[in-house]
């Protein structure tokens, strides 16, 4: 008996199998991407426990131990597992401390951008009218600013510091939130429960706070997780160009910048390891963000 179709009429698949005895939440955990979560948890732990984990002081170097390769190479030493840089500083310790800086800066920037963007998005979408027009035009114009160049400009204008970096990154990346959240709010406005609240005479602020906000939380969180990776790369880029985190602080991007000159002379470990760290973190953030996006929107689970 022929059991295969001659061809496919469309790609719609049946929705997910009905869950077994396990509760829905538990099943979700079972499907959760363990590896990215693990990486991110490790990141947080490393960042928090940097002082205890790092074998050496990241900013003080031993000038007699410069440019040592990782332990498994010829001249390597077990004291400096991943080698040393041009000032004799331990690469591993710098990576560990660098995780703290990257994590703190990226998280703060994403939060700040999220708060600004979400607030503007809600305001613009809910109030409509000229407020909406003004905010939208402003957002459009702001989005026209070339992100990295603008960040560089700001970094050049402000004194180099981590807090400034957070502000700069937030200033560059809030626009995406505003756009998306506004769209969500616009569609939410048409829903009955909002209309009921308006008719019942709730104040606008109350509606925005208690009715709209929880419903857009999902989108906001998804955006935040997806932005996290972008911001980490942005911070690394700025540091790489010399306008981000300032030496002697150990930021991964900065390490790449300092390692660049050693590239041609074969000091590969200075360029590989920081990049791998960046890649792992961003990969984890992206995978997690993707998974979260699918998890929070049942419609997307089919494909």
């Amino acid at each position, binding site marked *: 008996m022929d059991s295969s179709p001659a061809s496919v009429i469309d790609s719609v698949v049946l929705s997910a199998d009905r869950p077994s005895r396990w509760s829905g939440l538990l099943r979700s955990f079972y499907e959760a991407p363990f590896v990215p979560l693990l990486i991110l948890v490790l990141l947080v732990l490393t960042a928090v426990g940097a002082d205890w984990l790092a074998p050496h002081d990241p900013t003080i170097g031993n000038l007699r131990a410069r440019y040592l390769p990782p332990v498994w190479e010829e001249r390597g030493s077990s004291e400096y597992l991943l080698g040393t840089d041009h000032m004799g500083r331990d690469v591993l310790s710098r990576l560990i401390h660098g995780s703290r800086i990257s994590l703190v800066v990226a998280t703060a920037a994403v939060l700040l951008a999220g708060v600004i963007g979400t607030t503007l998005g809600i305001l613009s979408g809910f109030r409509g009218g000229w407020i909406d027009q003004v905010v939208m035009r402003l957002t459009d*114009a702001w989005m026209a600013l070339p992100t990295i160049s603008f960040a560089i*400009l700001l970094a050049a*204008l402000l004194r180099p510091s981590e807090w400034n970096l957070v502000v700069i990154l937030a200033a560059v990346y809030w626009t995406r939130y505003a756009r998306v959240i506004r769209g969500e709010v616009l569609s939410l406005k048409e829903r009955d429960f909002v209309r009921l609240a308006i008719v019942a005479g709730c104040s606008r602020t109350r509606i925005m706070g208690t009715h709209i906000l929880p419903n857009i939380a999902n989108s906001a969180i998804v955006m935040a997780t997806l932005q996290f*990776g972008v911001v980490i790369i942005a911070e690394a*880029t700025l540091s790489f*160009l010399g306008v981000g985190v300032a030496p002697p602080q150990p930021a991964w991007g900065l390490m790449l910048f300092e390692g660049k000159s050693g590239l041609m002379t074969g000091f590969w470990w200075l360029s590989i390891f920081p990049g791998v760290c960046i890649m792992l973190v961003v*990969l984890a953030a992206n995978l997690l963000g993707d998974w979260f996006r699918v998890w929070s929107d049942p419609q997307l689970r089919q494909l």
Partner: protein
Amino acid sequence: MQRYIVRRVFYALISLVLLSITIFCLIRFTGDPAVLMVEPGASEADLQAIRQEFGLDKPWVVQYGVFMVNMARGDFGMSIYYREPAFELYLQRLPASLLLAAVAMSISLLIGIPIGILSAVRVNSWLDTIGKTFSILGLSLPSFWVGLLLIMIFSVSWGWLPSSGSGTFWHILMPAFSLGWVFSAAYTRMARSAMLDVLGSEYIKLARLKGLPEKLVIAKHAFKNAVIPVLTLAGINLVIMMNVAVVVESVFAWPGIGRLLYEGISNRDFPVVQTTVLMGGMMIVVINLLVDILYAYVDPRIRYGQ
């Protein structure tokens, strides 16, 4: 269609004005620009002289007016380092960046679209998994690191390609690839999801019902519809690419506007920095406008009005 175009032009103009105001305000409000234009440690008299020379002691509105008028005339100030008009420097470097962006864009589309489409056509197969992996990886690697890796492999280890400078075909290969890498990941994603959407549509159903061979269904009906959003994205991304190229240009010492910006920062050459950012923003607005207009011609739904 006329109304559509007029509206788009209007919005573009507003964007440009807001852009200039933003840059202007940022510069004026984050400290004394005069300080940025002199060597550190200059005396107060020097600063005063600079202020007078550049009209920085006049009221802001006037300064803005002067600023805009000068911009209209193409006068963006004089580069401190090169002692040439910043605008001319910019124009000199622009073609190199355009070339790099064009090549990078081609590479990214040539890689991204086929992988994305193939992923969608063979959805949930191992081919799809490869495609999805490719796109995630692409978005997770910073372009400058890709550049560094390429240099390590192709310049240092194998000695095949030159690691910096420009001039021959070989020089452009690695920078273009590094630059295009991230974008190809984005196009893969977009192509895949656009293709999946199209494959689920009614007109594809009808095409199959007509008895058209599957290859024709995909290549003619599905492809054209799916590629539109990707190309739109690509058009908009062209300018973004040029601006993001700062890092790649720095890594490979490619003489474009990105490198100009970088030099401006290193040399504390403020007019150059300002010019680059302003021009960058303006180009984004203009290109977006052009893409919108082009779209109006390509998509018959807009062309014949709705």
